[in-house]
């Protein structure tokens, strides 16, 4: 999965967002070791201080933990990952509903479409 950054938001926040998605999707499974700051910076093409900041923030949120010499690891706390999954899903839903509202869809129409389209899931 390539790293992509938009201009209008702080890069550390975008980096965190993409790391969160990787954790939820299983790209970065529980207990997985994260690349070093330098490697991650080079891979994503961003400043090492920015990566450091994003990882420190992830650590503060309990999503990753650091072991003094071994590096940083994804949390193995499944409750944390479950709640992260819910958060991301809610945000995704919010975007979807806002987009549908902009197109003029009402609640019942949206529900009906979900029922119909849901069959293909």
């Amino acid at each position: 999965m390539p790293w992509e950054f938009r201009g209008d938001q702080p890069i550390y926040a975008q980096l965190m967002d993409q790391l969160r998605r990787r954790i939820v999707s299983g790209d970065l499974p529980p207990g997985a070791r994260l690349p070093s700051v330098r490697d991650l910076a080079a891979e994503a093409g961003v400043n090492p201080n920015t990566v450091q900041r994003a990882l420190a923030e992830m650590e503060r949120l309990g999503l990753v933990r650091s072991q003094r010499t071994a590096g940083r690891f994804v949390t193995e706390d499944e409750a944390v990952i479950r709640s992260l999954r819910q958060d991301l899903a809610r945000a995704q839903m919010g975007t979807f509903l806002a987009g549908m509202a902009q197109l003029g869809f009402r609640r019942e129409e949206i529900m009906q479409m979900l029922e119909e389209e849901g069959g293909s899931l």
Partner: protein
Amino acid sequence: MNRLECRGLTKQFGALTALDDVSFAIQPGRIVGLLGPNGSGKTTLIKLATGLLVPTEGEILINDQAPGPETKGMVAYLPERPSLPQWMTVKGLQDFYEDFFPDFRREVSGEMLDRLEISPKRKYKQLSKGTREKVQLILTMSRKAQLYLLDEPIGGVDPAARDYILDTIIRGYDPESSVILSTHLIADIERVLDDVIFLDRGRLTLTGSADQVREQKGMSIDALFREVYRC
């Protein structure tokens, strides 16, 4: 200790004021973009930091010292135009840098030349313009300096080499050294910047952390630049 500090820095060339009362400081471990349109004073500022020019008023300090023989050992400078002896081979240039600079890491330069498939046997003057720029940048970045002053390092090279150069800057990152790079090609480099310094006709118009600027203005540095300097 600041790697670079300017206090009321002013430079006049006759009636022209190239830099007007510029003050800022750069801490160790920062990658800083010196941004501004043509003629805004970027090259003048860099030349003042190397000691090639002297201030009309105010001061500029490298590790708390005025530019001079001592600071030259701490600073790796990439001039805007290729300035190496034309008749030398690439290998000859490596020897030249090794003689001049005790902090030159020959094996690092060799690796980078290899990666960009530049043969050390080639004569400098027979290289294309872009390749000459790459060679000089490689030699500059192969020094283990405390301050790198890169004047338009990506202006003349192709996009693939540009990515490699940015990658080199990121991988070479050292929390003890700072990098200042001047450019007007902001979109290409803004992701690697910690801080930005905007110059406009010799005046400092904006300075701060790149992420903070993006957050406050809700736009990329590139978009902000286009807005601020709209012609």
